[in-house]
């Protein structure tokens, strides 16, 4: 092959390979960094009791309540999207998307707990988590998912004099 043929081949496959490489290396690094951030945040924030029960947990006596929420939109990277579309041919578990959803959920809960923290809440009850797929475009098979977590922050009762 002449150099021109090599050049043509590169122009055809190059962008694809670069995007896959970018998705693989940068995407994995971003994911690892995110999980690390989540672990430190959870350590600080999950000191407040969190439950999906509708009533106050035993021992908690609140004097008020307010809605708290956290939401995040997460997207998959190019490499994982391609890997998943190959996976769809044979079926089975798609690990990379599982991790994506986990990131979204944990981040949304963290943001919600941050608000509860700001309000000096003593507990967060009736946690609800909802997920919705946004931006499902015909040309774009990569998932974009919005996760929202919301709940009721129980505020401390005022010290009776």
């Amino acid at each position: 092959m002449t150099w021109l043929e090599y050049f043509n081949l590169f122009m055809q496959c190059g962008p694809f390979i670069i995007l896959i490489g970018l998705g693989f290396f940068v995407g994995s690094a971003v994911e690892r960094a995110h999980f690390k951030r989540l672990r430190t945040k959870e350590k600080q924030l999950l000191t407040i009791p969190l439950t999906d029960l509708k009533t106050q947990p035993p021992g908690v006596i609140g004097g008020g309540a307010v809605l708290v929420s956290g939401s995040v939109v997460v997207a998959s990277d190019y490499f994982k999207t391609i890997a998943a579309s190959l996976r769809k041919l044979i079926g089975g578990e798609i690990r990379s998307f599982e991790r994506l959803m986990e990131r979204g959920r944990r981040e949304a809960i963290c943001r919600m707990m941050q608000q509860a923290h700001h309000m000096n809440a003593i507990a967060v009850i009736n946690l609800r988590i909802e997920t919705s797929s946004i931006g499902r475009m015909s040309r774009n098979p990569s998932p974009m998912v919005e996760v929202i977590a919301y709940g009721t922050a129980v505020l401390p009762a005022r010290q009776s004099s």
Partner: protein
Amino acid sequence: MIVVNTEIIPGFEILELKGLVQGNTIRAKHLGRDIAASLKNLVGGELKGYTELLTEARRQSLERMMSQAQQLGANAVINVRFTTSAITQGAAELYAYGTAVTVRPIEGNESVTSPDGASAFRPEGSSGSQVPA
């Protein structure tokens, strides 16, 4: 106005039912954000532009719900639920609904003031942390 997603409000008692209240908004994303998001889509992770857009939209639907409750003469909305649905490509409906009621602090809890109900959807930084004194 007190807004919670539980059926009871800790420290308060429910006096009167005012009825169902709801608020919705349909938002389309704009092109600039779409392009930025599709670039971010290559490496994955959070799409901040969309997060902000949806938070803002959800706050608006909640505010519409609260203004309905106000018209009914309620001072709290309980059992609030949110749903999101994609209407067409690139547009989403955000819907909030709940039950408007009137409440009163229970005995010995007169002094408690609750933060504004929509404070859950303040943009970050200005997270209206009106902590009851």
